């Protein structure tokens, strides 16, 4: 496990589900993790936009809809092992179930922060992985090029 990954684990940013995803990656599906994570990013950003849109609307009252978005966000976060993001969603959902708008706003801010951190770190992780693969390729003096 790389040092960055170990740190992310230690911080609770990722959990063992992320390792599970890595186990699903092999020669037949060499980019599986980054593919799934990319889908997760797209979905998450859409959900965040929706949540923000709902909350910042002055006449907002549709907590149920917010709960639906949060459930989706929670589900996908747990599926990729994004533990901290998922935990913030849980707290967010609790605030929304109490119709606590101020609490929701705070939770949204925290959620966006956690999500940004996760996204940056995962990008870093993938970049490091790519560099590692490239470096490994250079070691072998083969003339084959892909």
């Amino acid at each position, binding site marked *: 496990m790389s040092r960055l990954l170990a740190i992310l684990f230690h911080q609770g940013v990722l959990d063992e*589900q992320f390792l*599970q*995803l890595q*186990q*699903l990656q*092999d020669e037949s*599906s060499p980019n*599986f993790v980054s*593919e*799934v994570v990319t*889908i*997760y990013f797209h*979905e998450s950003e859409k959900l965040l936009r929706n949540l923000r849109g709902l909350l910042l609307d002055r006449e907002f009252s549709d907590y149920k809809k917010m709960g*639906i978005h949060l*459930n*989706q966000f*929670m*589900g*996908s976060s*747990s*599926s*990729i*092992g994004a533990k901290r993001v998922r935990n913030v969603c849980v707290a967010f959902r609790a605030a929304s179930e109490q119709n606590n708008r101020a609490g929701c706003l705070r939770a949204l801010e925290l959620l966006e922060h956690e999500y940004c951190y996760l996204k940056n770190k995962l990008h870093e992780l993938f970049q490091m992985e790519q560099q590692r693969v490239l470096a490994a390729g250079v070691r072998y003096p083969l003339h084959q090029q892909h």
Partner: protein
Amino acid sequence: MSSNSIASNRWMSEKMDGFDLSPNSNSDNEEEGVHVLAVDDSLVDRKVIERLLKISSCKVTAVDSGWRALKLLGLLDEEDKSSSSSSSSSAGFDVLKVDLIITDYCMPGMTGYELLKKIKESTTFREIPVVIMSSENVVARIDRCLEEGAEDFIVKPVKLSDVKRIRDYMASREVRSVQNQEERSSSNINKRKLQECFDLSLSSSPPSISSSSLSYPSRSPSLTPSPPSLFSSSAPCSPSSLDSPTRRLKMTGFD
């Protein structure tokens, strides 16, 4: 020996005729050709479950809603619900032949529970095992699904060990099906075997069990859930794990 395990029967005859309706991504391993229909509205989850199944040598068709699943199964325009006795009776389009359905519980439109009910109401498909997935570990929800006939209930996130358990169950189910077909010509051995199996879980022996039914009939409500035990994924063959509430293992290799 009526409409017993239609899915297995179809599988057997289709194997012999070399006629394969299902998308064939793994044509080498016909014996491992368990075809799973996965239903989940989350794209992330669909990708993951698809990969989990493929890496476990299953063929996968993944759809995003219960409606689409029913459509693929040919259950939507169901005028011939009662008269249909084979998979290809739905005129017009290709009906998917599946061995297992795994579905998310929380979905917009039709929930996994509603999908489960529709499948169990169908004469054609009620024998197909249905597994429910959910991110919420709610015992009432689990109970409801199992009572409706779900084979198993998996708490998300789904892991390789969960899929392996399902895979082992499907393999043992096929073996049992072949064995039962061989024995059926002889006698009531089948009845007795099933009886023994059910005695593990039910307190009284229900005399009305159809001997030809391989799927579990509606469970007696007297099944008492054992105290919540830490989920263990490493004991797929333990016969006593029927009551584990977090996972509700019906798929144990007892026999």
